[in-house]
Structure formats: structure tokens, C-alpha cells
């Protein structure tokens, strides 16, 4: 009798873990989405900057202030941002894969637990 209780408690815990994993995956995907959009925007900016000749004026909006920027510096900044975002996206991809694997194995162990509980309960019913 207590075996079934223990297993059911274990099942509940595993179910909670499963739900938490699902939430983590959702969050991960949202952050990935945000970064992907930023990456696209930065690449567009880089393309525009590349089209300019050296003496074109470039300004950056910092808060309420438009500040004149050096074209080379602006290029370097945008490139660095693109690198950073790409690295973050890669890291997030790795985390996502990791989470998916954990999710799958959690699902398997939940299924196994459910089976065990069922067999135990069936056995008791017979007895």
C-alpha cells in the first residue's frame, strides 16, 4: 500500500520536474527569438554601413542624444555585436538540446513509473 503511495509521490515530483523543463524550454525559445531578430537588424545595419564611402557621417542614438560616430568605429561596434549575438544563439542552442534530452528522459521515466504503479495496483486488486 505504501509502495503505491511512495511511487505516486515520486510520479508527482517527476511531473513537476517535467512541467518546469517545459517552461524552461519555452523561455529559451523566447530568448532565442529575441536574439534572432536583433541579429537580423544588426546585419541589415552592417550592410548599410558597408555601402557608404569613408567620409559619410554616421550618428548613433544614445538615449536622447544623437552622437556623431566614426564610420570605422560604427562598423567595428556592429560587427562585435553580431559576433556576440551569434555566440549567445549558439550557446542557447546547446542549452535547448540539453533541455530537450532531459525532457525526453523525464517522459520515459514517468511512463515507466506509471506502468509500475498500474501493475502494483492491479496486483493488489487481485489479492
Amino acid at each position, binding site marked *: 500500500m505504501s509502495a503505491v503511495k511512495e511511487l505516486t509521490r515520486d510520479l508527482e515530483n517527476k511531473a513537476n520536474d517535467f512541467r518546469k523543463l517545459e517552461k524552461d524550454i519555452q523561455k529559451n525559445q523566447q530568448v532565442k527569438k529575441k536574439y534572432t531578430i536583433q541579429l537580423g537588424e*544588426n546585419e541589415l*545595419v552592417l550592410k*548599410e*554601413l558597408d555601402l557608404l564611402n569613408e567620409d*559619410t*557621417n*554616421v*550618428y*548613433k*542614438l544614445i538615449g536622447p542624444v544623437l552622437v556623431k560616430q566614426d564610420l570605422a568605429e560604427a562598423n567595428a561596434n556592429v560587427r562585435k555585436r553580431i559576433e556576440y549575438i551569434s555566440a549567445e544563439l549558439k550557446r542557447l542552442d546547446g542549452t535547448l538540446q540539453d533541455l530537450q534530452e532531459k525532457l525526453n528522459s523525464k517522459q520515459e521515466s514517468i511512463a515507466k513509473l506509471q506502468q509500475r504503479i498500474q501493475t502494483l495496483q492491479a496486483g493488489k486488486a487481485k489479492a
Partner: protein
Amino acid sequence: MAATPRMELEKMSVEHLRGLKEQVDMEVNLLQDSLNNLRSANARLEIASAALQDLSVRPQGKKMLVPLTASLYVPGKLDDSEKVLVDVGTGYFIEKTMVEGKDYCERKIALLKSNYDQLLEVTAKKRSIADEAGAILQAKLKHLAPSQ
């Protein structure tokens, strides 16, 4: 060409089919949202392009009202309309000539239009899958309960 996916759908169970249809319906909605966003962005660019066109024919020194907020306008005079500041994204502004500015607008409008067309194709395909799944689902349900 449409035969193969249809056979796949036919093989699925009612539950599976229903889940698939729901998922594809959701995707179609998301795609439709994106399409609408693209259309409104394109509309804004067209307005910007028209405004540029108008500015370029105005003489220097022309009196105008400058918006400071949504409800506050201040009288001013048009300065050199040969130079324009273009917002290219992520907080960067580029000083361009009027011609370059117009060119920028044209380029962006063309880019958005091609994105829109591509997305339209994808949406149409997804929609047809959703419709097929729906039709087959109906057929199966009818098959399961013919006496009713």
C-alpha cells in the same frame, strides 16, 4: 504531387489528425500575423518615401510647422533638404543625400515586398495542408459514425 501528402494524412488516426490540424492552424495564424506586420511596415515606408519626394521639391527657407510632440507643432524654416538622416536600425543614423535617401526607401520597400511574396507562398501551402487535414478528418469522423 498532392497525392503523397494526402496518403500520409489518410493513414493517420483521428486523434493524430486532429492534433496535426490544430498545430498547422496555429502556424497559419502566426504566418498571417507576420504577413500583416510586413504589410503595415511597407505602408509606413511608402509614406516615408512620399514625404521625401515632397521635401525634395520644396525650396530652402520654406516656412513649415515642425512637430515636437503629437500635439505640439512649432513654426520653422526648411533648411537644406539635400541632406537627410536615415534611421537604419539599432540606433544608427546615416547622413545621406536626398537621392541616396530615396534610393534607401526604394530598396527597403523592394526587400519587404519580396519577403512578403515569399511568406505568402509558404502561408498558402500551410493553409492547403490545414484544409486537407480538415477534410480528411471530417471524412474519417463521418466514416466512424455513419448511422448518425
